[in-house]
C-alpha cells in the first residue's frame, strides 16, 4: 500500500483482485448532498460503496452496522454532518458516541479495525466524499474479503 510501484508491478500476476462491498449510511442533509455534489462535479470514485440514505446519522442503529457485516459487507461507513452542523442540531453527537462504542467493540472482538468507519462530510465536500470512498475501497481491497462476521450460508 505504501509502495505504489510495487502494487502495479505485481498487479498483472495477482489473482483476481477482491472487489470490496461497502454499505454507506449517509445522512440526507450533509453527506448525501455532498455525494450529490461529487456527482455534479463528476468526481470519479470506485463503485464499490452503495449508499443508504438516512435522515440523520443519529438514526443509525448499531443493528444496521452489525447486519451489514452479517450480510457480508466488507466495510461499513456511517457519515453525517460535521459537529454543530447537524440539520437536527444534535443527532450526530448521539451517533458519534454510540458508534464510537460500536467501533471499539468490533475492534475488541478482532474485526479489522478499519472495516467500520465514520466520517463527517458536509454538503459542500463533494471532493471529500469521493476521497473517503476511494480510501475506503483501497483499504478494503488490501484487507481482502470480510469473513469474520459474514453469515456462512
Amino acid at each position, binding site marked *: 500500500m505504501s509502495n505504489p510501484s510495487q502494487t502495479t508491478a505485481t498487479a498483472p500476476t495477482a489473482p483476481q483482485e477482491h472487489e470490496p462491498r461497502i454499505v454507506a449510511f449517509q445522512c440526507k442533509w450533509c453527506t448525501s448532498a455532498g455525494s450529490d455534489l461529487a456527482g455534479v462535479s463528476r468526481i470519479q470514485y470506485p463503485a464499490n460503496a452503495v449508499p443508504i440514505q438516512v435522515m440523520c446519522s443519529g438514526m443509525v442503529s*448499531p*443493528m444496521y452496522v*452489525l*447486519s451489514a457485516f*452479517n450480510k457480508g459487507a466488507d466495510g461499513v461507513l456511517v457519515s453525517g454532518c460535521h*459537529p454543530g452542523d447537524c440539520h437536527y442540531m*444534535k443527532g450526530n*453527537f*448521539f451517533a*458519534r*458516541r*454510540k458508534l*464510537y*462504542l*460500536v*467501533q*471499539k*467493540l*468490533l*475492534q*475488541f*472482538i*478482532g*474485526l*479489522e*479495525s478499519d472495516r467500520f*468507519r*465514520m*466520517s*463527517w462530510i458536509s454538503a459542500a465536500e463533494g471532493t471529500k466524499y469521493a476521497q*473517503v470512498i476511494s*480510501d475506503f475501497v483501497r483499504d478494503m481491497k488490501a484487507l481482502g474479503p470480510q469473513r*469474520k*462476521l*459474514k*453469515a*456462512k450460508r
Partner: protein
Amino acid sequence: MVKVEDIQQCAAGLLEKGQVKSVLGFRRGTAGAMAEPCTITEAAEAGTLVWDPTCLNNLALYLVKDRKQQAASKTPDIRPIGIVAKGCDSRAVAVLLQENYFKREEVFVIGVSCEGTGVIDPKKVATLLKGRSPSRVEFDGADGFKLTLRGGEMQVPAREILADRCLECRAASPALNDVVFGEPSGERGYATPFHAAKEALGASETERWAAWEHHFDRCLRCFACRSVCPMCYCPECVVDSTSFVIEPQTSAEEKANRIKWCERSPNTSESAVYHLTRAIHLAGRCVDCGECERVCPVNIPLRLLNTMLEMEAFEMFHYQAGHDLSQASLLSSFRDEDPNSFIR
C-alpha cells in the same frame, strides 16, 4: 463483618410490619454448594436466609420479573419488595430506577457490603478441580476460602477463585440502599479496574478474533445470559425469536414483518450479532454483576464485552452505570468534547 442475623432480622421486621410484600434473598439450595435465590413472604421464613460468598445471583432480576407479573395481572400487587443487594446488585436497581422501570418507593434495598470479600466464580473452582464440584464453599479467615470436597477439604487463596468482577470491584458497598450491613469500606484492589478487559486488549487482532470466533461458535443461544440480566428486561429482544410480544392489536403484517437481524441457527455469525447487539445495548447500563458470564453453560467470557464498553464509557465519557439516577443514559446523552478523532 456482615452478620447474617442482621439481614434475617431486617427481613423479618420488614415483613412483620408489612412494609414489604416479600423479601428477595438467598438460601441454601439442594443443587450444590451455591446459594440459590429465594423469595420469602413470611417473617418466620427469614431464618432461612443466608449470606456468604456463594450468593452469586443478582436478585434485581426478580424485581423485573415481579414487575412483569404485576403488569400482566388483573389484580396487581404493587406493594414494595425488599431485596438483598450487593454493590453491583444495588447498581442494577439504580439503573432500573433511572429507566423508570419502577419507582423508588416500590423497592426496599437491604444493602450488604461485600467488605473486601466478594463472591466466588464457580468456573474458576471448576478449573481448579478440573470439573469436579465442591459440596461447600466458606470464608476461611481473611484472604481465603475453604472448599469441602468428596475427598476432604482444601484451602484456596481468595484471589484464585474470586469472581473477576469482585477482583476489579470499585464499589463493593451498595450506594443505593435503605439500610446497609457491613462496612462500607473494602475496596479490595486485587486487580486494577478493567484489568481483564485491558488484558484481553493486549492480544493481537488475530488472537482476539481467534478467541471470539471460538466463543461465538460455541454459543448454544440458550439466551441464559439475556434471561438472567436485569437490564435485558425488554418485552421482546430485538435479536431473537423466543420472546414475541403479541397483543390483541398486533396486526398480521407486524407479525409477518418481524425483522430477523440474525437467524436462530447457532452459527458464529448469528451468535456474533446477538452478542455484539447485547453488548451495545448494555453500554452504560451494564452494572457488572457478571451474571451473564456466570450462567453461560459453555463459559463464554461475556463479561469482557460489557466491561470493555464500561471502560470506554468511563474513560471517554466519564460515565458510570448506576451512579446517578437523574442522569440521562450513556447513549441518550453526549458531551461536546466526546472523542471526534476517530472520525474521518
